[in-house]
């Protein structure tokens, strides 16, 4: 039985109460709807009736409509009656009218002019109660029309001397709402200065409202409200030092004005730390007092007391993190949060994890945050609430660096086994990013990603497996391991389709690296892959078919077996057109193409251009900007983070991804692209048919070129091409030379003082190159410093084919010059003569060195003689991107030493140059100045010629 409420203040509306009771007594949804429809009909007839309704009835019916609306039903009439109520001189009628308008009138209603008119009258009434009703209505509706009508009137009310306090409060927040919805319509003016002084108002309610308004305005135009800093600090100081009774009713469970304190602390977060030292120390005192209070015994056992107190504390910590300038405060904040991590209140544990995430991105407190790693890992394992565990994952991600990456990745992986489905994908992305970012040893990276697929295959997005393939292709040192590992993983009776994709791709590219072992012979590999085929989706099957044709190239001994498979009805007559087409074309290709052509078409994938991980972009999209603690962007002073990666627009990323897998500069003939085969699953248009035209001329009109080349070009010694030389300082693979006829690609590897370069000569035309020779020459001075031995190369390169030449290199002592590669061949009767400066530079013989900060600086001092140091200051030629810079320094061959330089913006590195005669230790430091777009590079080594040369080489890179 429902009872009528015991208390009904003001004038109750009996009819309304009866109606509400009726609704509550309805036994079913149908009965309720019936009752409502009956009431709506009744109200409609009353409103349409001839008899004029009195104010009370109008109010009652409008109120009933409101109630019906709040039950979730649509209301399409009664608006006019509500507007009529606005002009009633009876307060309760006016009040209900305004409530109806606030709840039910959308901003583009036709009635807005009538409503505005009523509001205008009430604002002018000088009756504070009426004025407040009108202001509340504006604040609740906040439409543009209202902003147009009242944006200039409200500031006047706000700062007028005779406005009552309660009206000022409403006016301030009303203006805040209008500023938020239509900032262009709220004019700044002389009132702004007077608004700031409301921070000094006697009435704390006025200060509370005004602080919110000022914060909004200060975000929009900080310079106009700078004076609020000192006033806010003064006010805050008075509050935190007050005794609990000073503020009377503004004290909440023994906490002085918690709402106002939070708002003041937030206002201060619109600005950097105050420059004025007195002001700054006063603020520091306030913050210290707040931190101290956290250690005092509670004044009440009520949760409200601790919540209010901690609300202020957390806001103070936010300000400390925002300023990011007082190491002592940051460390104190971190310790305080550390205590909360183990608090019995779940809410506090949640907030501590959340807040620590931002603290982890400050240079000053990153280390302090790291000390809590065990507690955070424990939270991951024991918290019963998924939202708290989520925070723990975020924090582990934020606190991860090289020193703890392995531990964190292991913990995240083990959590993933039991993690809630809702957060699995995000964890997968995070693990993938950390594994890549902090991989010292890429076998660990490969293991981690395969584990990810094993544990949470369904949540491994395309980006993740694309990325592992990119990385394996770009790193020679991990390819054999990757092949072995995927081969083993595929042995599992039930493996995830994502593993089949990665396995198919990697074995297709690098299966040869493990084929020597009889347990993973070509046939075994093929049978293993093919055993998964029938369980896979079409895109994966397509990828497997590509892997099969690559197998035919890699292992002629399995050709017949694979052809048999391709020839089977299930392939050749596959209902899926893509699969059928692949089967037909691959089969045909394997029958007609010569071994050479196959070898060219299915040449190993060239390295991908280095670029931002598409996984990172995905995680950012997932979390939205701002929510993701950027593990690369340690905060600088004032809390502005410098984002080292530019967020990619979501719709572009798929193109970027495709570009990742479809590199443009590859060391091989352009006409026959194996990439098209191997990645056709990724693109929408399978350009496979192009392959069948292998013998037709390539797209460039090569035959025309003969005429273009002047006869004389072959008679004189060619100019040495140096164009791409400096591009190879920080990388080992890529295209060093290309013209219309020939492309020369390089793949190099170095160990200590020895190196090997694989040179690939690709004939871009359809005609043979005859009398092909290539040799390496060195200037006299270089001959004793660097020995280059070139193996001979086949004198004929068929049209569209590629040949490889191996150069063996030994570094005898440090050197400056570079050897030259001379290439000659006959094309269509003309002798071609090409000379290319070979990118063999001193830094190639670097071995990276790890050292501690202390060792570094000790060595740095030891190498202080003037001739040992070479310094260069230069303008940035490329965007100053931290990640790119790091990659370049690593590519240069030295170790990038983290947290050695006191200035986190700087990069320092160390390495040893190995030559046959000596080893030269080398330290380097790169100091970017983003404002000036300049760099200062300093090299210190024990030999001046080495310092000089390394400085020349590296300074060209930025």
């Amino acid at each position: 039985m429902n009872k009528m409420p015991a208390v009904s203040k003001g004038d109750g509306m009996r009819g309304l109460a009866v109606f509400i009771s009726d609704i509550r007594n309805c036994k079913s949804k149908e009965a309720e709807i019936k009752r409502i429809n009956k009431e709506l009909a009744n109200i409609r007839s009353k409103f349409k009736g001839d008899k004029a309704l009195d104010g009370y009835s109008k109010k009652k019916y409008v109120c009933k409509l409101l109630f019906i609306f709040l039950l979730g039903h649509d209301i399409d009439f009664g608006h006019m009656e509500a507007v009529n109520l606005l002009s009633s001189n009876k307060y309760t009628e006016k009040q209900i009218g305004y409530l109806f308008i606030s709840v039910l009138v959308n901003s583009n209603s036709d009635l807005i002019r009538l409503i505005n008119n009523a509001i205008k009258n009430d604002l002018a009434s000088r009756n504070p109660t009426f004025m407040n009703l009108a202001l509340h209505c504006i604040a609740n509706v906040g439409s543009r029309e209202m902003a147009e009508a009242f944006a200039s009137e409200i500031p006047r009310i706000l700062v007028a001397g005779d406005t009552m306090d309660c009206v000022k409060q409403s006016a301030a927040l009303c203006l805040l709402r209008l500023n938020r919805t239509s900032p262009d319509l709220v004019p700044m003016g002389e009132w702004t200065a007077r608004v700031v002084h409301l921070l000094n108002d006697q009435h704390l309610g006025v200060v509370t409202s005004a602080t919110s308004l000022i914060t909004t305005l200060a975000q929009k135009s900080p310079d106009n409200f700078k004076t609020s800093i000192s006033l806010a600090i003064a006010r805050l100081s008075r509050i935190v030092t007050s005794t609990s009774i000073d503020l009377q009713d503004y004290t909440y469970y023994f906490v002085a004005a918690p709402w106002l304190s939070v708002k003041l602390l937030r206002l201060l977060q619109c600005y950097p730390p105050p420059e004025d030292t007195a002001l700054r120390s006063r603020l520091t005192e306030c913050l210290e007092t707040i931190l101290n209070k956290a250690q005092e015994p509670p004044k009440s056992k009520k949760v409200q007391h601790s919540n209010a107190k901690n609300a202020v504390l957390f806001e103070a910590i936010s300000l400390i993190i925002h300023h990011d300038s007082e190491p002592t405060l940051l460390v104190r904040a971190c310790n305080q949060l550390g205590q909360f991590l183990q608090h019995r209140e779940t809410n506090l544990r949640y907030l501590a994890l959340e807040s620590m995430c931002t603290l982890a991105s400050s240079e000053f407190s990153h280390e302090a945050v790291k000390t809590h790693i065990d507690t955070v890992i424990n939270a991951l394992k024991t918290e019963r609430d998924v939202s708290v565990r989520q925070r723990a994952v975020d924090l582990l991600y934020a606190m991860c660096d090289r020193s703890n990456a392995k531990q964190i990745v292991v913990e995240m992986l083990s959590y993933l086994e039991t993690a809630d489905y809702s957060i699995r994908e995000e964890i997968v992305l995070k693990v993938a990013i950390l594994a890549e970012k902090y991989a010292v040893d890429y076998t660990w990276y490969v293991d981690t990603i395969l584990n990810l697929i094993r544990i949470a295959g369904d949540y491994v997005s395309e980006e993740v497996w694309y990325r592992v393939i990119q990385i394996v292709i770009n790193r020679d040192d991990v390819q054999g391991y990757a092949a072995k590992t995927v081969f083993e993983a595929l042995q599992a009776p039930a493996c995830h389709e994502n593993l089949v994709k990665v396995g198919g791709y990697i074995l297709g590219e690098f299966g040869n690296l493990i084929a020597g072992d009889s347990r993973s012979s070509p046939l075994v590999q093929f049978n293993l892959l093919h055993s998964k085929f029938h369980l896979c989706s079409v895109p994966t099957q397509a990828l497997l078919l590509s892997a099969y044709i690559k197998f035919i190239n890699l292992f002629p001994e399995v050709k017949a077996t694979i052809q048999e498979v391709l020839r089977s009805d299930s392939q050749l007559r596959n209902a899926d057109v893509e699969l059928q087409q692949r089967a037909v074309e691959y089969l045909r290709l394997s029958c007609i193409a010569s071994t050479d052509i196959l070898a060219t078409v299915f040449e190993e994938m060239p390295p991908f251009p280095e670029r931002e991980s598409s996984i990172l972009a995905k995680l950012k999209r997932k979390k939205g900007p701002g929510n993701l603690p950027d593990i690369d962007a340690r905060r600088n002073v004032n809390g502005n983070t410098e984002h080292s990666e530019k967020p990619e627009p979501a719709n572009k990323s798929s193109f970027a991804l495709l570009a990742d897998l479809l590199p443009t500069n590859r060391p091989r003939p352009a006409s026959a692209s194996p990439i098209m085969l191997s990645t056709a699953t990724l693109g929408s248009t399978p350009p496979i048919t192009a392959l069948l035209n292998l013998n037709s001329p390539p797209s460039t009109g090569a035959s025309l070129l003969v005429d273009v080349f002047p006869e004389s070009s072959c008679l004189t010694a060619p100019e040495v091409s140096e164009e791409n030389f400096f591009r190879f300082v920080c990388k080992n693979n890529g295209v060093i030379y290309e013209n219309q006829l020939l492309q020369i690609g390089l793949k190099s590897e170095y160990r200590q003082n020895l190196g090997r370069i694989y040179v690939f000569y690709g004939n871009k035309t359809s005609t043979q190159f005859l009398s092909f020779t290539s040799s390496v020459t060195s200037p006299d001075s270089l001959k004793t410093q660097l020995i280059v031995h070139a193996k001979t190369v086949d004198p004929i390169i068929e049209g569209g084919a590629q040949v490889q030449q191996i150069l063996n290199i030994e570094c005898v002592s440090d050197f400056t010059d570079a050897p030259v590669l001379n290439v000659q061949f006959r094309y269509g009767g003309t002798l071609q003569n090409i000379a290319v400066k070979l990118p063999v530079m001193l830094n190639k013989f670097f071995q990276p060195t790890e050292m501690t900060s202390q060792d570094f600086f000790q060595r740095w001092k030891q190498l202080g003689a003037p001739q040992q140091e070479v310094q260069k200051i230069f303008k940035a030629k490329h965007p100053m991107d931290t990640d790119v810079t790091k990659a370049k320094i690593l590519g240069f061959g030295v170790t990038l030493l983290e947290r050695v330089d006191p200035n986190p913006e700087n990069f320092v590195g160390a390495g040893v140059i190995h030559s046959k005669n000596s080893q030269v230790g080398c330290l380097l430091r790169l100091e970017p100045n983003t404002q000036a777009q300049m760099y200062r590079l300093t090299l210190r080594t024990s030999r001046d010629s080495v310092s000089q040369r390394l400085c020349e080489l590296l300074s060209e890179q930025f």
Partner: protein
Amino acid sequence: MALCLSLIPDSRQHVHRFTTNCLLRCMQFMLLFSRQGKLRLQKWYVPLSDKEKKKITRELVQTVLARKPKMCSFLEWRDLKIVYKRYASLYFCCAIEDQDNELITLEIIHRYVELLDKYFGSVCELDIIFNFEKAYFILDEFVLGGEAQETSKKNVLKAIEQADLLQEVRH
């Protein structure tokens, strides 16, 4: 049968997160709903269509009701944070932005409950059902535009009582 919204809150408490392009971190909306999922009060501080409001309400009520006791009072929801707390049969639920202060929001809820309690005298769900307009008026005096306007309990109640007085005099 009246269910007293005793001021000792149920141990279940919660709040969630949502998206707008407004600059300031502020409260986006407040919802009161019963354990049965019936909406008792809704207050929106950002412009949204009725359709969106209904969708949000439906999703959120479902999410919050599914939470277990002793779970934390905060949760991420879309890109908002939800702060919620249960008092007897009613859930009070506020959506704030990412950077906003969760604990102070929790105390906004509590102060509102105190105001209702003081005004109705041991408030129960039925008071809010039958006098929903009063619940709105009290909220407007306390929170406006998503920001705390007057945090003194005395001052808020004084304003409401003055208004009540006004209607009696005039009527």
